[in-house]
Structures are given as C-alpha cells and as structure tokens.
C-alpha cells in the first residue's frame, strides 16, 4: 500500500497538473513554510459561482508540490462551498485518520507520518482556505 501511495505522489510531483501562474486571477494566494522551505501559490477564477482554472506555482519537496497538483484537480469545477468543505475534510483527515471518501488524497495521508511533513502536505490547501475565506 505504502508503495502505491508513493507512486501516486511521485506521479503528481513529476507530472504536475495545472502548474502555471494565472494573471489577474480572482484568487492568488502565496504561502511559504520557512521551516521546511516550501513555497506554493494557488490561483483560480470564480465563474458563475464555481472555481475554474485552478492552478499553482511553487517549489519545494515532492509532497508539497504533489499536494498542490492534487488540489488543482480536486477543486476545479467546485462551488465555493463545496471547495471549502473539501478543504476542511482534507485537513481533518491529515490531522486524524484516512478517509476513503477523499480518493487519491488518501495517498498523502499514507505518506505523511512525521509531523514536519504534515505541513508540507497541507500547505496548498491552507493557502486556498485562506483565499476563499477572504473572498
């Protein structure tokens, strides 16, 4: 199982989805974790109440970047409420235990054991949470 999780995360790290900056986006939120050196900026446009063109840029470890890549896939096409729900569910899982309803995001939970890596996995999600709550 662990090696399957690893493959998922590595795939997102090596072939990141929606990795690009978005000019004049409705949402642009940068977050940096100085403790472990990861940077992520998430972007999205809100069109007719749904999140479109969710994307990211950044640099850092495989977990932080893979997690951002997964976020873009998970949140595209969601309403603001749905997105916020998903973010909370993901953060809750990372704090507690695996939640099969979250699909491949479970891989991140599987990989992250040590606490320092937890912050890598949640970085992009915290950025999006902050952005959405500020809208």
């Amino acid at each position, binding site marked *: 199982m662990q090696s399957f999780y690893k493959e998922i995360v590595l795939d997102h790290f090596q072939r990141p989805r929606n990795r690009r900056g978005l000019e004049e986006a409705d949402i642009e939120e*940068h977050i940096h974790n100085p*403790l472990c*050196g990861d*940077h992520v900026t998430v972007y999205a446009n809100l069109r007719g109440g749904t999140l479109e063109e969710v994307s990211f840029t950044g640099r850092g*470890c*495989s977990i932080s970047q893979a997690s951002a890549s997964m976020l873009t896939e998970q949140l595209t096409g969601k309403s603001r409420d749905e997105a916020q729900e998903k973010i909370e569910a993901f953060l809750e899982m990372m704090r507690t235990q695996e939640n099969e309803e979250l699909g491949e995001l479970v891989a991140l939970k599987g990989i992250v054991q040590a606490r320092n890596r937890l912050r890598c996995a949640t970085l992009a999600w915290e950025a999006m949470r902050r952005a959405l709550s500020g809208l």
Partner: protein
Amino acid sequence: MQRTFDVQAVREQFPALGREYKGRGVVYFDGPGGSQVAKQAIDAVSGYMERGGANLHGVFPTSTETEEILAQTRLAAADFLGGAPEEVAFGANMTTLTFAISRALAHEWDENSEIVVTELDHRANVDPWLIAASERGATVRWVRVDPETLTLDREDLERNINEHTKLVAVGLASNAVGTVNDVAAIAEKAHGAGAIVAVDAVHAAPHIPIDRDWLGADVITCSAYKFFGPHVGVTAIKRDLFERMSVYRLDPAPDHIPEKLETGTQNHEGIAGVKGALDFIASLGEGASQREKHISAMQTIEEYEADLAAKFRAALGDLPNVKLYAAPEGVHKTPTIAFRVEGRTNEEVCIHMLEHGFFIAAGDFYASTLAEKLGISDGGGFVRAGLAPYNTMEEVERFIEALEGFVKGR
C-alpha cells in the same frame, strides 16, 4: 518573493554531475570540502594552457596576456568580495595566505599585545595567529562557543577585547555546523579597541553575498575551490593596512601591493580559472555591474539553498537516533548540516550513504576545538552534508529516505 532559480540550467554547467557510482548518478554533498567546478572555470584553466602561458613582464603576447588575465581576475575577485583590485592577492590556499599575513602583521606585536581567536573557527584561522603570537610573546584569548546554540558567546567576546588587542580573527561562517557569525558587530567592537579584523570567508563565500567593508574586515580570505573554481586562495586586504604590512619576500621581488604578498610565480592557469568561476557566479545574477551581478547571484543562491537546508534539517530532526548539530532557528546558517547517528560510527553512515550514491564526508573538518568542546572528537566528529546550488530538493528527499532506512534498520 519567488525568484526562480533554474537548477537544471545550473546543473548543466557542472560536467562532474554526469559521473556515476555503481550505476547511479552521484549526489555531491561534500561541497564544504570542495565544490564541483563550473564549466567556465574548467575552460578557463585549460584555455590558458592551450593558448600558451608565460611568466610576467615579457614583451611577447603570452606574457602580456598572462598579466591581463591576472588583472582581470583581481578585478573580478574585488567585485566578489567588495574591495579594490589592487587590494586583492592570490596564493596557494587560505591557510598558506593566512600564514603569510600573520607573520607580517606580527611585526607590530610584542609582549604587551593580545590577539583574539574563537573556538568555532576552522584552525586555519586560528593556528597561524597562535604561532605568530607565541613567536612575539603575545597573549592569546579564546572566545567561547556556546555548545548548546553553536554560536559565539558575545559577552565573552566583549570581555576578551581590550586596548591591548591587536587582532581579532573570526570566521564568517562555520564550515562544520554552518553558523554565520555577526562579523559586522564583532568588527565594530574590535575596531573600537584599535584591533585588526581578519575574517575567514572560506566556508561562507559559496553561500552568501560578501561585502568586506560592510563586514568591517581588514583582511578577508577565501578559496576558489569552494566556489566552483580551482585550488587558489584569494585575499582582500584594506589598502592602508596592506601598504604598511611588512611581508616576507625576496629582495628583487615587487615591494608594492598586492604583488608583494604573492611569493614566487603564481598559479596562472588556476587564477584564470578563478575568473571563470566568478564569471559563472555573475551569470546567475542580474545587475548593471559585475559587483551587482555577484551580489544578486549570491542572494539567489542563498535563498535557493536555504529552502533545501530547511527541509533537510527539519527532516533530520524527526529521525530517531539522529543528533543534529545546528544553531537554533533564527540564527543565520549556511546549508551545511552536521549530524551523528547514535550507535553507528560516522564511517558506517558515510558508507551506507555511498551505497545510495551520496558522496558525503565525516570528521572534525579542522573545526577541532568545536568538536572537542562537543565531546565528539574521539567519536570522529560530525557527518557533514553540505549543499551547493547544483543540489536539488529531490536529492535532499532521497538522502533523508536512505538515511531513514539506515537508522530504522531497513
């Protein structure tokens, strides 16, 4: 903000990164012992010899070209350290230059003189001064390193500097544990007492921007083989001091700065290579002048390496049975990471990591006073992972994973 650092483009400039060990690409984590060499530096060394070299002061082109190369490298080194070209002298390495400078400066010392060295420094910035002091009957005062924080004890430093102090020798950064010292503040105190400040920038030079005068260094010395060039030492000495320094030299040799310090025929091809290394660094930066490019490049490198090092230290701190030696958060550090694995010898760690393709060294790295103080001299000192701008986050993660396997007995 998020300035981009194109690590792949940087890696292409280092031919040695193509090397393999037992079928896998080598990861060089031994930069603090000597970095890999940039293509521009390699080309400059071989280019000099291919075009034809000569000694100085001839009327023929190979001789005048050699003089030109030395002049250009002096200019580049002055722009790298912050100084004027005529304040820059070359030598075999930092240690050899420091011996020459120490015995010249010691002409101004007597039994009433005192000098100050530190427990954190590499012995190359300690022993030459100790020997010179003992020859003059001068007193040596040691500044204590706090074994908990791996930083210099500032109160002890203040106590040790007084009106008899002739010299304060301090490193800009520790080659063992990466602590960057607040040299500007130390120099201010030293200058208040009328002392000369000699700064060892060997370990710092590949990692942080340097400005000799901002630091308050009267003498600042580094070595090009740590910053992507060949084995050549470089020093920049403030003009007034340099001019009055009575160096050991041959009678017919130049008696003016900077050549008076450069004994014998210099390593011309090496000096050509230093220019290549500095040009490579400048190519990573932006700005109108060479100086601006050097500063901007070093800022970019520092920022990039800081992220790798943060990841590295955080992950090591989480591994069981791994003891990390690092100054606390908030203290400026180079990406040089020292640790030990409980119950294993340093050699075992290095050999295990070698099996995974990592070139990593162990020892006290001549920061032997620090190692003694930490009680690890007999245990072989530290394992040291030193990062360079050609290292990647992926390499750091792979290292952590391999080390985790080792400490957990997998």
